[in-house]
């Protein structure tokens, strides 16, 4: 998205004025207010009334005109007050997979003496929610945002706005949470070359394609790693055979970067991610080997998250 210089300047100014923070109580410094579209339309109506009043020299038409003007001005204060004093707090962002939605959890709270109505939290073009803070002291809301890339999702500005009570003025503020949400690679099921799914052996053990225990010799399929071709058999028969190996679940399985049959990094990560999901679902013990990082075989939630995080942050300039 390209911004023109003025917009850039405005964005920069906003960043300076409203830096990322996990909690902010909206007040004078942080609230902007302008007449809304219908507010401007009302001003046009006022102009019309003024002309009517002047031309008919009618005092009561003047009264209506000035009354609406006073109401318009008063309404600005009302709208401002509906936003001022609201405390917004970013709680957490749940990790998600690339291509799905990162969900930010926020808490809005108020001072006990003041009620707030019809506040809109808006992630432009992503998600919005309308809340009231009158019947309760605080409210938790979730906003979702599409996470397109793996790594850390840094939530953009959230616009908090209100036009309460009459819709004639628009008061708004921005809130940028100082949180990062992990975005795991998009899982990619690869059922072609390497059978990643677990097969069931005769002995009843769960087998997963792996590299440690020799299982059988089968006909070569495109995509098989070149190291596993049974050259002796080739010499004998002139046919390509592949040695296939399995990991018995009783022992640790390794998910290895090098064994993913695709040269593209992102795809590899996606495939590995799908495998991690798969294995975690079967509660298998597995380890992960990616360049620069090796996670020893284990199982359980913590391990699972650790693996996914490693995949998410692979090659990225974090920590």
């Amino acid at each position, binding site marked *: 998205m390209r911004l023109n210089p003025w917009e850039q300047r405005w964005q920069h100014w906003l960043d300076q004025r409203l830096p990322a923070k996990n909690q902010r109580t909206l007040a004078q410094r942080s609230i902007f207010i302008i007449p809304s579209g219908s507010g401007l339309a009302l001003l046009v109506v006022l102009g019309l*009334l003024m002309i*009517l009043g002047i031309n008919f020299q009618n005092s*009561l038409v003047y009264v209506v005109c000035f*009354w609406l003007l006073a109401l318009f001005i008063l309404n600005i204060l009302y709208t401002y007050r509906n936003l001022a004093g609201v405390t917004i707090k970013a709680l957490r962002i749940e990790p998600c997979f690339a291509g799905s939605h990162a969900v930010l959890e926020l808490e809005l709270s108020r001072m006990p003496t003041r009620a707030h109505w019809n506040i809109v939290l808006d992630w432009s073009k992503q998600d919005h929610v309308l809340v*009231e803070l009158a019947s309760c002291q605080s409210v938790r809301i979730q906003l979702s945002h599409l996470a397109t890339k793996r790594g850390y999702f840094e939530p953009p500005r959230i616009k908090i*706005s209100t036009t309460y009570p*009459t819709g004639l003025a628009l008061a708004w503020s921005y809130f940028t949470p100082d949180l990062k949400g992990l975005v795991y690679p998009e899982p990619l099921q690869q059922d072609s070359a390497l059978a990643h799914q677990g097969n069931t052996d005769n002995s009843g053990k769960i087998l997963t394609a792996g590299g440690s225990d020799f299982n059988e010799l089968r006909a070569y399929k495109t995509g098989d790693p070149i190291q596993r071709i049974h050259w002796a058999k080739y010499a004998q028969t002139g046919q390509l055979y592949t040695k296939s190996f399995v990991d018995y679940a009783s022992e640790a399985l390794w998910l290895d970067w090098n064994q993913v049959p695709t040269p593209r990094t992102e795809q590899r990560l996606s495939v590995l991610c799908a495998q991690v999901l798969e294995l975690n679902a079967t509660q298998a013990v597995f380890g992960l080997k990616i360049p620069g990082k090796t996670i020893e075989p284990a199982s359980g939630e913590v391990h699972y998250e650790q693996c996914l995080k490693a995949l998410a942050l692979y090659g990225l300039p974090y920590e």
Partner: protein
Amino acid sequence: MGCPMNKTITYSGMLWLLAAQFVVMLPFTLYLPWWLIPIMVASVIWRLRVLKGYSAQPNALVKTLLVAMGVGGLVLSGLPFPSLDLMLAVLLLGFAFKSLEVVQLRDGVIVIFLGYLLVALHFLYTQEILAGAYGLLGMTILTGALIGIQPAVTVLNPFETVRSHLKLATLMVLQAIPLMLIIFFLAPRLPPLWSLPMMPGQTKTGISERMTPGDIADLTRSTELAFRATFKNTRPPQAQLYWRGLTLNYFDGKTWQQLPEDYDFINFKNQVKGEYALFNKNFELRGDPIEYEALYVPSGQPWLFTLTPTLNVEGDVIRAADYRVMANTITQSPALIKASSYPQTIRDTKLTHTMRHLASQLPQGSDPRTHELAQRWWRESGQNVERYIKLILHHFRTQEFYYTLSPPLLGDQNTIDAFLFDSRKGFCSHYAGSFVFLMRAVGIPARVVVGYQGGKWNEQGNYLAVYQYDAHAWVEVWQPETGWVEYDPTTAVAPSRVTEGSDAFLAQEEGLLRQSFRAVQNNLPWLSSLSQQLDALQYQWQRWVVGYDHDTQANVLRKWLGDFSITTLTLVILSVFVALGVLWGIWLGLWRKPRLTLEQSLMHELDQILAKKGFKREPAQTVGDFAQQVSSKQADLGKLLQQFAQHFESLCYNPMANKADTTQQLKRLLKQLKKAPITQLGRKIAPLKPSRISEG
């Protein structure tokens, strides 16, 4: 800036709009076709049924048909074209139909803004105090509807929702009053930008420019107000209150009119600026003035009514050679003048040729008997004007002349003869007309003056209210030594008409019902005092609100601010606005420091204490979690913190806990935490983050 909200109007929003439209349209039924209201109600009900899923949204064809029918109805209703009435009726029709297609918030806003406009437009028809109060109601309901149609989270039931919206709308409308008043009093008043057609619904009221006594069989007299007047010093006696409107010079044998030719207002004004102009050399100021102020009800005519001769006057008026004061424009809003009349002044010791010609004209060959009578009396009086007049008045008094509001018709020719010799029954026009005829018959310049006589004194408000039934006609006779002198021949027949006022006089002639009503009013003094008080209120309203124009404004400002310049005025306005803004701000609590709840302040304190010791709590972390995290590094501190967490949780979530006690405990723990030592000396502990723990 666009917000992707769902902005369709809900069922309760539609109900709000229905109420607002109804309130706005109701008063127009007095002036415009009443069937606009059922159209509006039907449109809204249709829309409501669509919302409930009972009916389908009308398609374009149906809408076109409906609009065509509505316009057809307006055409048939016989409103003049082009007129503001018709424009307003079309606007109302659109307003009524609009609710059929109110789907989006924007449509609703349009309906409400149109409503505001219509509330104002209604004041073109009437500016009565009641209309003003009704306008306030309209504003409140419209504002309520504006609040009601906004997209909202509903937590209250519909009834409570409506009540809270109405309460807020009322509050806002009332709070806007002070600011409105300031703008109202200070905003400059400009002259009309362009000339306007006749006001909608405005009919000409008040006295007519013609007087045809013989044509009227039954004079209906309205009880409507003509104007109100206040006197600066003492009030002149009732019998001296002759309020001059216009003079009628030309008589065609049946009808009296101002000038030989019928002029429209613009041409008449040209006459007044030319041949018919008043010059200062015409009169000689004499005696003490009667200073007064008069506020005229808009009549759709330019005529104003002043004491004779009014020689000093402030206001948008012009004066004519016959000493009348008239408005510079047709009065469509209350006209206010400040004037001084000098009753002892001698007017026109020299009569111009034109004026003499005008005041001597008689139709050729009409009323021979009257001419004969005039010549006889003129001889009997020895050609003395004084004696001649006395003779005529004596004749009216002693012969069988009657004052009645239901005189017989006088035919088309020789109407003066018919009155003087045959019917002898009539009201002021008959007497004034024949008196002037008798004067002119012997060559004495004379003219008919029409206006009002007397009025009703309002004790509560100290002003004189002059009603339409006070309309009167009298005469002026010119002589070289005395100039113009007024006579009232009607008093010869009905002296009480002037001394007691037409109100009492009319009572004798009115029907039984009115008489009994009057009797009730007279026997219940509080009733008449109440009605006087209400009228006094009306007067203040007319004087200070409706009649607040450029001149009044200048006077008020001069009174308050002394001689002011634009700069001082601007400064005053600005400072008033700033002061008001500050006051409002304080009142609305804009500058109030956000108050923390007890829980918030305790947490804040805890966070600060622990931050000094190197522990930072994540915003989302509960105290319990935090305590465990700290315990792993600092056992003692963690223990205290766990205690704190326990008490804190009971403060927040245990409704049975003793709040004061718990708070005491928490404060004590905070003190201990503050003093608690960090065991690993000389090294600050890096802030912990939960995410890093798992990494090991």
